[in-house]
């Protein structure tokens, strides 16, 4: 068996085994079969219990509202930004900041927004500068709102860079400039060329990422714990609470809930596929109605305002984290802290360093293993066919709570729960698909003749592979490694389930601190969580730059 095929098989095992056995391991307890805890009787009682759970309708409502808002906001913003700003001066800013935005951990972003929108947050302090009646914090329900609207908006903003990067990659399959020229020559405004000609071609290519965003948005736990409703919470958070209960029966109830969430997500995915067909179906009425430029100026204005709002939220979220992390005294309604200090950071320095060490170790180990597996698997002949790697993205399409409980029992049966191996495995399930997304295009478009020439010249195939192919792909490889680190750092539920409560990372700590801790401490942990992927991204850009700065073809 070649190394490439071996990587292919190992990756299949690493990614598919936890998902398939995990789903089975969640499905069986939902029907009352949970032999490890002494439940052997197959029954539908736990589904009944689930249907009668107090506040279920509110949980479902909050889940549907926040999830729908998230996918609508991220997709509409992606469509608007591409349609209005493609190749404009703003476009460069978007392109340059997409990777750092993607690297921004979900929990850190949610904490940053929390610092902005709480009744005593930065936005209220800003308004208090102009409205004296806001000199005491207003009674706004801006976080933990019953319908999870803030959660939905934040999720939408956080998923925006992911969808934009996927759209950029889809643009490579469609000749955008040519289509723009053809559309404009027929009298269509560029915005309408995008809406009527380009997007109908891009949307089917973005099916997988959009479905992944749906799966994530309707089942997110970490951001929901920070910003979502609390009594009752969203469905995914409630399921997690049932799974964490000491009463074993509650865990079976959690399994029933996880299966129902899986079904709900599946229905929503099918709903999206139907909507996509309706939107981009051949000769759709709105595509051939002949409208060429109606309200295009209004669209542009709206897009500019939205763009500034989005940038504003991102920038102020980062600034608020930094301010809280270094503030000592920041009374309401002061706009900026009256006293800055490193005292809080120093007080928690031991804990921070230990968490940084754990987080770095996990992220680097996971990313390096994931990278090697992906490099191997992309060289396998089996991976060259179209859709050959679709299975790799399965973990992204299934809600985490719907299989991680089952996966935990798989780890328990191999004595791997709470071990580094178990946690690295649980992170690899998510790190591998993202590394593959980041790298596959570059490897596919690499001109193999360079390798042929190098092998002919040196007579050493492996040497040529590393010295030529890998060296020429150093930038995408280091970028993929940074993506892997960012994905690993952001993992919350996999760390909780596989770590069995024995291993804490910056993310698990930041999420638990969000529930009532001192903002200054939360700020420090959010900042530390932010620093890991940003340093990695910095290195990923700097290293190839320093090595190849003399060679113009190797510049980014």
């Amino acid at each position, binding site marked *: 068996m070649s190394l490439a095929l071996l990587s292919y098989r190992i990756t299949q095992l690493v990614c598919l085994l936890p998902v398939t056995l995990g789903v089975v391991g969640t499905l069986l307890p939902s029907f009352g079969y949970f032999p490890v805890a002494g439940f052997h009787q197959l029954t539908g009682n736990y589904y009944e219990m689930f249907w009668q759970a107090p506040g279920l309708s509110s949980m479902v409502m909050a889940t549907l509202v926040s999830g729908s808002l998230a996918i609508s906001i991220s997709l509409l913003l992606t469509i608007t930004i591409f349609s209005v700003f493609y190749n404009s001066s703003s476009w460069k800013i978007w392109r340059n900041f997409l990777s750092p935005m993607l690297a921004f951990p979900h929990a850190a972003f949610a904490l940053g927004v929390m610092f902005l929108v709480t009744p005593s947050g930065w936005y209220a302090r800003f308004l208090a500068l102009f409205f004296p009646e806001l000199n005491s914090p207003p009674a706004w329900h801006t976080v933990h709102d019953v319908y999870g609207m803030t959660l939905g908006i934040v999720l939408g903003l956080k998923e925006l860079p992911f969808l934009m990067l996927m759209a950029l990659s889809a643009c490579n399959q469609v000749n955008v400039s040519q289509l723009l020229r053809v559309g404009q020559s027929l009298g269509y405004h560029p915005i309408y060329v995008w809406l009527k000609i380009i997007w109908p071609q891009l949307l089917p290519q973005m099916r997988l990422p959009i479905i992944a965003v749906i799966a994530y948005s309707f089942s997110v736990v970490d951001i929901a714990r920070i910003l979502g409703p609390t009594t009752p919470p969203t469905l995914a958070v409630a399921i997690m609470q049932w799974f964490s209960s000491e009463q074993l029966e509650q865990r079976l109830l959690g399994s029933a809930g996880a299966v129902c969430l899986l079904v709900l997500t599946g229905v929503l995915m099918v709903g999206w596929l139907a909507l996509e067909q309706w939107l981009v179906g051949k000769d759709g009425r709105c595509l051939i109605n002949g409208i060429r430029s109606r309200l295009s100026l209004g669209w542009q204005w709206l897009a500019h305002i939205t763009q500034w709002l989005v940038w504003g939220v991102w920038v102020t979220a980062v600034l608020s984290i930094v301010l809280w992390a270094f503030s000592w005294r920041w009374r309401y309604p002061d706009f900026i802290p009256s006293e800055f200090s490193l005292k809080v950071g120093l007080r928690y320095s031991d804990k921070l360093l230990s968490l940084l060490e754990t987080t770095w170790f996990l992220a680097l180990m996971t990313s390096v293993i994931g990278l090697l597996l992906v490099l191997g698997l992309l060289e396998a002949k089996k991976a060259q066919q179209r859709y050959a790697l679709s299975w790799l993205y399965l973990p992204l399409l299934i809600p985490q709570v719907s299989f991680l409980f089952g996966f935990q029992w798989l780890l328990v049966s191999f004595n791997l729960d709470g071990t580094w191996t178990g946690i690295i495995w649980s992170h690899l399930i998510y790190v591998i698909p993202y590394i593959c997304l980041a790298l596959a295009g570059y490897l596919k478009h690499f*001109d193999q*003749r*360079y390798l*042929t*020439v*190098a*092998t*002919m*010249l*040196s*007579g*050493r*195939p492996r040497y040529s592979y590393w*010295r*030529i192919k890998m*060296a*020429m792909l*150093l930038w995408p490889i280091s970028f993929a490694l940074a993506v892997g680190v960012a994905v690993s750092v952001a993992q919350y539920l996999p760390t909780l389930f596989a770590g069995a409560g024995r291993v804490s990372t910056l993310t698990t700590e930041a999420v638990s601190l969000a529930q009532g801790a001192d903002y200054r401490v939360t700020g420090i942990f959010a900042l530390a969580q932010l620093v890991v992927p940003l340093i990695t991204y910095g290195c990923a850009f700097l290293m190839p730059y320093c*090595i*190849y700065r*003399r*060679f*113009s*073809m*190797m510049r980014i």
Partner: protein
Amino acid sequence: MKMQGILQLRSISLSFGSEPIIQGLNLTVQPGEIVALMGPSGCGKSTFLSALCGLIPEQFQFSGEVLLGQQNLTQLPLAKRQVGMLFQEDLLFPHMSVKGNLAFALPQGLSRHERHHQVMALLDEVRMTALADRDPATLSGGQKARISLLRTLLAKPQLLLLDEPFSKLDQVTRSQFRQLVWSYITRYQLPTLLVTHDSADIPGHCSQVIQLPYLGSTLC
């Protein structure tokens, strides 16, 4: 000057799925001799050369024997065939300087000093020492082509395959580069297969011109 072996192709067949391109071709190329393969774009010329290197694309089938001197290359991996190939593009490694590109072709086991000395001596011979530390992307088309040729020759191939190496050069550079290639083939006595779609690229002393038909009609 080392005498190279004779290239012999025996009963070579190449097909694309069920469509034969070449059937039962027998060919002998003497050291220093050039045989040209002509044909329109997409007729399988480049695939034929790749197949001689052992690189057969998935949809193609290749059979027959490739002998070079006393050695049967048919089952040998690319790394052991001692074949040199020039493509349409120069394919200079973009992350290495001109010197680095040339040094890559030198055999293993040489010291850093020896590598430097050999590369500089070669560059000196063609009056290109000033280019040693240059980024390949900053060279002209003609300079890139010459460095690519020198790199191929430094690896001491026993057989030279030319896959339309002149087609991307301008008229003047093209003519100069052709003369340089022919002179090196004679000097190193390399059996050479040249693939082209332009009869102007075929040298006067070319011993044989094989016309490849359009895909679908077969060369026997």
